[in-house]
């Protein structure tokens, strides 16, 4: 399985990768994107099986990326990993077609709960 991780923070991308491994999802190919525009391009070129995306990013936000993907007909499974976990943001994410929203700070249990039905 190929997982695309989009976050403008390189440190946070590493923390997400580390937490995926700690949650037991350690046998997957990882692709990184540094903002929403990069993620949008890499969904096309890399054809990931899952996108884990930050919300607030320069150039293109995560929600804009998700909306652009759905507008173009992409059905790639998409989840947010963001510091903004309010009910309002969760509703916006779900309405745009996100499968889940993992709020930062998170731990391996949060990842396991959100991803167990998504990652084989």
């Amino acid at each position, binding site marked *: 399985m190929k997982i695309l991780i989009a976050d403008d*923070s390189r440190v946070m991308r590493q*923390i997400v990768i580390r937490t995926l491994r700690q949650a037991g999802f350690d046998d997957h190919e990882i692709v990184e994107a540094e903002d929403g525009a990069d993620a949008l391009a890499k969904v096309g070129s890399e054809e990931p099986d899952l996108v884990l995306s930050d919300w*607030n990013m320069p150039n293109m936000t995560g929600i804009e990326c998700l909306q652009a993907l759905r507008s173009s007909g992409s059905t790639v499974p998409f989840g947010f990993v963001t*510091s903004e*976990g309010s009910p309002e943001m969760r509703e916006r994410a779900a309405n745009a077609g996100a499968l889940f929203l993992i709020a930062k*700070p998170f*731990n391996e249990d949060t990842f396991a709960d959100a991803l167990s039905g998504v990652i084989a």
Partner: protein
Amino acid sequence: MTTIDTGERRRGADTRPVITELIDEATVEAIAQEAWISLVGEDEVLVPLPGEPVADPLSSWVDVVGPWTGSVVLTTGRRTAEELTRALLREHSPEVLEDEDVADAFGEIANVVGGNVKAALPGSSGLSLPDVGDAPALRNPEDVCRVDLLWRGETVSISVQGALPPLPAH
């Protein structure tokens, strides 16, 4: 039709909440503790004690814009910010840290703390991308919620501070 001026609209326009009406120190500290455990390490605790004044300070912050507008500012010494960066990077920590690494890691801590402070505030607000450097100026001493903490014996302060000057007194 006679309109009665109750002053309601003027009062509504002339008042805005200060942060101490919206969040307290205990909530800010709890948010910071969770962020530390998740990002810095499971055994990393923040001790709620004021420390020595910070020499060579560095701040990271995010801005919140909404019913309350201001910044969530973390301040510590530059050396401590570097130590935090190494803690976040763990095995990926380079021998020589670049300023960019510190800005990324210390900014991300502000992003996580700030995002959770924002979520605890009433109403709908926007959150900026993090910034790192000299702390934004304190505009209104009444519109500040500040906690002073120690991490590995070093001072870390978190200031949730309004961006607007006080309203003129009537």
